[in-house]
């Protein structure tokens, strides 16, 4: 026997937790602290039946907090106060002693909180939370009706089961309806509120400018940059080209769109790749070097930089054909002066070093080799933290501190190439990627943002990655892309990938084409691993597996005798076209009535095993099964 009250208490806590969870990160810090405190105090209160805050005090606090946030409320700032108020009201309700009405309030507030969270984020977790929350709230509401009748009521095991069964009907029904409405109702592809004030991802990852020495730390996060669905590629070819920076001015590399330039890609290994980018991205990333790009209106620059024609408001994707490790040959005229332009001020030490190299060199190729040797001699280390902030970061990097991240390496390398008379530019993008075997795509995160150098040697742009010259390149730069993400993260990202694709960016046309594709796939189905990349097929397979499991599970619950009997009845029904065999008919009676020798043999043997003292042996089972097989082979009688 369990008290209805304690069950309700638990449900209220769970509901509150689930409702607030997706919202938590967006709350004010003060509220973030208060919430868990309220939860804990609420639990302690319920356990000891002694509450810190009385109902009157709670009402007063509610009003004060309400007023506090009401003041902040204005047209430009609507969501944040509302969300915080919701969370606070929920916290206060959890904190105090609860009556039936209060439980109802908690349930409602939880649902409001969850609903409010969709204004701020469209995370995949919303769906499971919604399902669980609906289930919990319906159970809670059913329990509340009991609680209202008699607060001291206790429920037995059987009653609880019946209650759960009843409570399960509602969410099941509403979830079915939800699937139906999913196809009909309009939807948003971005959080309604949050897209206006985009979050905090700008500080790290890919930059349109390269300016080493501005920040002491470059703490890149593991936030998603983009996903690229393609076959698995060699690690050292994983350069995702984003932009090309060709102008160096006061330690800042920026981009000038090259006008008169044409080039040709030859050789290399061709790959096709579909890239999924979050909304708002201004550059399109491609496996280096891209041949062409489809599925989006783009602007292609001469130096293989693709930009969307219009900024995209929602998550989008495009297909790229690229040629890995290919050579990029300059075709005809090229304005070398942009790639040789030097900033007004170049530190003397760097200039000296570069001139020294230029003096020893007899060709651009040897200049590069000598420069690489110089970098190695300097014993530079790859590091992203505690870097000196100075006016001459490159000088500091090369000769004093000798620590820096890719921007330091690339900037100084390109600068010294230019000083030595070799045209050069920086390429910004990403290096590496976490291959998700489940979904067959690369997950590229912000921390993989990278800058490398392209140098013009004998009319061919060579890719040089100076970061590899760091003494600890093996352990930091490359290890980064080899370090596998935890399994849970990978599976989570896989689910989120399909959530984005199937739900957030869902549109009718796409759905139709999926259905068409599925039909086509099923029509000429061949066992090819690539086919399994189709999400629709996953769903079909999952449903099939569930069905099979269920059937098997249901079947296994029957005893051997029941299985044999069921088979016997089926066979007899089929053969003699009987609709139903009454339960009051014995087996032998049935066999005699049908005057069927096989039936009689089965009945006699079965009866002997079922009603006598004998134990079932394997031989008996086999014999029964043989009789059944014979029975089943008979054609239905006319």
């Amino acid at each position: 026997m369990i008290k209805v009250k304690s069950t309700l208490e638990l449900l209220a806590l769970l509901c509150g937790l689930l409702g607030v969870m997706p919202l938590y990160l967006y709350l004010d810090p003060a509220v973030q602290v208060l919430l868990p405190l309220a939860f804990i105090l609420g639990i302690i209160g319920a356990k000891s039946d002694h509450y810190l805050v009385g109902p009157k005090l709670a009402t007063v606090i509610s009003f004060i907090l309400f007023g506090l946030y009401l003041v902040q409320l204005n047209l430009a700032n609507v969501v944040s106060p509302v969300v915080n108020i919701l969370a606070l009201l929920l916290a206060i309700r959890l904190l105090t002693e609860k009556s039936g009405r209060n439980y109802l309030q908690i349930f409602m507030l939880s649902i409001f909180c969850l609903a409010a969270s969709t204004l701020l984020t469209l995370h995949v977790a919303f769906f499971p939370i919604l399902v669980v929350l609906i289930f919990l709230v319906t159970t809670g509401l059913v329990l509340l009706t009991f609680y209202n009748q008699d607060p001291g009521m206790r429920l037995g095991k059987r009653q609880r089961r019946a209650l759960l069964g009843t409570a399960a009907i509602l969410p099941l029904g509403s979830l079915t309806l939800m699937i139906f409405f999913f196809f009909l109702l309009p939807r948003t592809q971005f959080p309604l509120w949050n897209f206006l004030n985009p979050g905090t991802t700008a500080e790290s990852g890919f930059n349109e400018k390269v300016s080493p020495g501005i920040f002491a730390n470059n703490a890149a996060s593991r936030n998603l940059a983009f996903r690229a669905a393609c076959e698995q590629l060699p690690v050292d070819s994983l350069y995702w080209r984003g932009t090309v920076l060709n102008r160096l001015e006061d330690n800042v590399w920026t981009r000038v769109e090259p006008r008169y330039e044409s080039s040709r890609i030859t050789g290399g290994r061709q790959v096709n790749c579909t890239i999924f980018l979050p909304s708002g991205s201004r550059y399109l990333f491609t496996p280096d070097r891209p041949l062409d790009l489809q599925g989006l209106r783009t602007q292609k620059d001469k130096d293989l930089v693709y930009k969307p024609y219009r900024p995209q408001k929602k998550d989008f994707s495009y297909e790229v054909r690229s040629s890995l490790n290919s050579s990029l040959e300059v075709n005809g005229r090229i304005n070398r002066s942009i790639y040789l332009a030097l900033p007004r001020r170049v530190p003397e030490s760097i200039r000296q070093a570069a001139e020294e190299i230029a003096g020893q060199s007899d060709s651009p190729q040897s200049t590069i080799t000598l420069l690489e040797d110089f970098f190695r001699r300097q014993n530079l280390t790859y590091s992203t933290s505690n870097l000196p902030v100075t006016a001459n970061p490159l000088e500091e990097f090369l000769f004093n501190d000798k620590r820096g991240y890719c921007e330091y390496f690339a900037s100084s390398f390109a600068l010294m190439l230019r000083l030595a008379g070799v045209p050069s530019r920086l390429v910004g993008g990403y290096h590496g990627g976490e291959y998700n075997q489940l979904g067959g795509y690369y997950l590229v995160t912000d921390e993989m943002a990278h800058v490398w150098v392209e140098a013009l040697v004998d009319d061919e742009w060579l890719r040089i990655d100076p970061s590899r010259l760091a003494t600890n390149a093996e352990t930091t730069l490359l290890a980064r892309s080899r370090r596998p993400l935890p399994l849970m993260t990978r599976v989570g990202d896989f689910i989120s990938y399909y959530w984005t694709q199937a739900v957030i960016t869902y549109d009718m046309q796409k759905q139709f084409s999926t259905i068409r594709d599925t039909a086509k796939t099923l029509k000429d189905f061949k066992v090819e691993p690539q086919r399994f990349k189709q999400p629709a097929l996953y769903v079909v397979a999952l449903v099939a597996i569930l069905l099979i499991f269920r059937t098997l599970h249901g079947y296994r619950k029957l005893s051997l005798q029941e299985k044999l009997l069921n088979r016997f009845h089926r066979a007899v029904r089929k053969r003699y076209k009987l609709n139903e065999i009454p339960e009051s008919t014995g087996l032998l009676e049935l066999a005699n009535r049908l005057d069927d020798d096989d039936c009689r043999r089965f009945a006699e043997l079965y009866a002997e095993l079922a009603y006598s003292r004998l134990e079932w042996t394997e031989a008996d089972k086999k014999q029964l099964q043989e009789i059944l097989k014979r029975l089943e082979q008979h054609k239905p009688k006319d």
Partner: protein
Amino acid sequence: MTPELAGQANLLKVIDTLASRYLQGKIRVLRLAVIALLAEGHLLLEDIPGLGKTTLALALSRALGLSFGRIQCTSDLLPSDITGLSVYNREENNFRFIQGPVFNQLLLADEVNRAMPKTQSAMLEAMEEKRVTVEGKTYLLPEPFMVIATQNPTDQTGTYPLPESQLDRFLITSDIGYPPEELEKAIISKGGIRDQLDDIQPLITSEEILAARRAVREVHISDSLVDYIFRIAKGTRAHPYVLSGISTRGAIYMATAARAAAFLQRRDYVIPEDIKLVAVPVGAHRLILSPQHETLRKQEILQSVVENISVPML
């Protein structure tokens, strides 16, 4: 089945021989009679005269090698006419007990409902206790002992219908029914077979019958079938037309009769069909119908109860 039970083979031979040669078309009632014999019970035949009740009893007694006694019940029949009485022997100057017809192994009590209740109860007590006490002395009845009583259900004048408590002492009640058409014609053309009965040779000894009775007691009845019998009994008790259903004794008899039926099928375990076979003959006369439904046939009510109870299959 164990081979040492010669009684079984011989009993089946009795049924076979009688049914094929002397009592054509009466195999059902013949089986029930043998079941009653094996289950140490008694048989009540309810049918109109002239359908071969007496012939059946005679033929059975011959084939089974049992001594046969017969009482024609009338309203002036006295208990001593059944049990016997002591007669003064002048030469020896003492009373000598002269055994009545009850001291036979197979007793046919014709038209038992014509006897007055006092006589009826004397006979029924003898049936139940298998002993007779006359003038302070107790005499054991012979083994095996079985009564086949008949009563005419249509003839109501000057009868003392057996009360339910007395009916309860009969293990099996059955009618005989008319023989099938062709058979009846043949019987009409050939005449009765009463005179052929003398030709029937005993096919089994009393010892074998007693051995068979012991074997019947050993027949296995599984728990699920005990439950089945219980559900039948319970079903009659809950039936809306029934005032009082099958008693515990009725259920015990049903199990015993089912054991005997299984034994006759050469099985040492009971199957549901055995129970279904004996349920109505054993159970029907034990039902007491509610007054407004008294005109219904008890057999049909019990049959409907049985048809609504699921057979245990596991």
